[in-house]
């Protein structure tokens, strides 16, 4: 990635000042809903329920978070979400490493067709298959089963992950692989000992994508999980939203709690994520 402007040297001008101001204003507008979510979770509900609601919190009160963890089963929801998401990551890595390797490093008849199939499954809206999947899962006795939910999440995230990982396999220099082959490594050793260690950022990106695709998912979870004690966080949160007896600041605190993890991870690996997601389409 080259940043042409970065290398050029220039004095701050009126234009730069205007641009800076525009960036600040636009960022503020964009960020406002996030700010509002946080503010509404740390001030007394009465303040949020007045009109017009004050833009700055009059008093700060983090009691909502205590109330959330004491009165609502959020800890349990988060734990189950973590479980399902972790299973999804494991399943995704098992399936995607060999497939991405085959897509990136081997030439075989049918590879384009496989690529097309992946793209096609990746573009399919979940709503198109949700009813038949419910029928299938009922037939198998897989409803209200978090393992089966994780398997479904895996099926819907692997196509994207295969592309992301293929892009990082593509970036491993051919010479290294060839040298290893000449040195007598077999195919598996090349993959495990040579290619994988060189693509750690790609593997991290794939894990994060899979984890949060599952963590955030609502449609499948809401149709396949009916028992309250198996609720994942997205389901629990949606239930809190429709239960009118949840105090507003507790609801907002739940929203913030649920968002912290994905926001943290996306920010941390944003560059890798983007490089993986855009490989091939953006030259440079």
């Amino acid at each position, binding site marked *: 990635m080259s940043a042409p402007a970065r290398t050029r040297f220039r004095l701050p001008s009126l234009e730069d000042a205007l641009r800076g101001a525009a960036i600040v204003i636009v960022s503020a507008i964009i960020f406002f809903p996030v700010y509002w979510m946080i503010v509404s979770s740390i001030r007394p509900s009465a303040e949020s329920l007045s009109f017009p609601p004050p833009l700055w919190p009059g008093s700060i009160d983090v009691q909502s978070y205590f109330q959330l963890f004491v009165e609502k089963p959020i800890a349990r929801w988060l734990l189950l979400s973590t479980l399902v998401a972790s299973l999804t990551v494991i399943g995704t890595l098992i399936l995607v490493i060999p497939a991405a390797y085959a897509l990136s490093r081997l030439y075989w008849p049918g590879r384009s067709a496989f690529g097309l199939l992946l793209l096609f499954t990746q573009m399919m809206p979940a709503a198109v298959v949700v009813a038949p999947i419910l029928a299938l899962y009922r037939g198998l006795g897989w409803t209200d089963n978090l393992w089966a939910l994780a398997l479904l999440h895996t099926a819907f995230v692997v196509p994207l992950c295969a592309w992301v990982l293929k892009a990082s396999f593509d970036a491993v220099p051919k010479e290294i692989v060839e040298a290893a082959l000449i040195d007598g490594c077999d195919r598996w050793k090349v993959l495990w000992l040579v290619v994988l260690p060189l693509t750690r950022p790609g593997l991290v990106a794939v894990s994060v994508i899979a984890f949060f695709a599952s963590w955030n998912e609502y449609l499948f979870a809401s149709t396949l999980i009916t028992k309250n004690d198996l609720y994942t966080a997205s389901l629990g949160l949606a239930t809190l939203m429709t239960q009118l007896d949840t105090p507003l600041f507790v609801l907002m605190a739940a929203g913030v709690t649920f968002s912290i993890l994905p926001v943290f991870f996306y920010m941390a690996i944003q560059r890798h994520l983007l490089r993986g997601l855009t490989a*091939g389409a953006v030259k440079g």
Partner: protein
Amino acid sequence: MAMASALTQTTDRASRPKRARRSGVVGSRAFPYLLIMPMLALEGALVIYPIVRGALFSLDTPAGLGLDNYRYMLADPDFWRMIQHTLVFTLSVVVAILAIGLSLALLMNWSFRGRGVVRSLLTVPWAIPEVPVAITFVLMLDPSFGVFNAFLRLVPGVTENPQWLLDPVLAMLVVVGATVWKGFPFYSLVLLSALQSVPDELYEAAKIDRAGRFAQFRYITLPGIRPTLALLAVLAFIYSTQQFTLIWLITGGGPVDATTTLAPAIYMQAFRFYNFSYAGAIAVVGFGISAIATLCFVLLQRRMETPE
């Protein structure tokens, strides 16, 4: 997240000439197929098979196998209204997300202190899960205490809080807004790296030729990022047809059916009216739309790979 699909090649020209040598070194012809088998099996069982089964549902009518569901669908004014809502929603999301994404990318394509911080902040809406996004929008739009009303009241002449979710036009605006807000960072960041890959020399040359700002944008920037824009347009289209959670949790498809697009429509038929076979027929339409979009994506990608 599935919207953020990989902008990657389906074919890899670079490795094709290696065929002869590779098969000599790597050996066994079955090896690649072994590698993809587990993934293929899962996709077959949990994506392809349900699509086929859904299509079979749609043929299942009280009078035996037949096209009655489709006949009913094509004659159903609700179906055509749903298509209309889907078009309005999808086109609005695509146009808004690309316009906002590009404007932001242009604004950011410049070195300034704190650029990394702004980039990270921009990622936040993308990272927040849909359920909390829906909760926040519902709170901000509440007719009695929503903060959006407070902002709107600043406009001269506005003396009442609009009923955001009870007015068909406003409700559509709201779901489009929430979808765009959640999705735009991806488009913005991708366009930013596309902008940065436009060769600097072109701008230098343009300056020597005394080309103006607008001319530079029109004749250098735009052609440089056009392929990326086209691919992103297809991705935004797919992203918006996939959107279910935000619409469902913010408006429930309402008021009446004003924000019922394809995904909520299928869901309603299946789980509100328990009409799996009619839901199957609508799902086949959704399948067709997304298959066409996928083909467009592949064609655009091919064109991008071949140098002009």
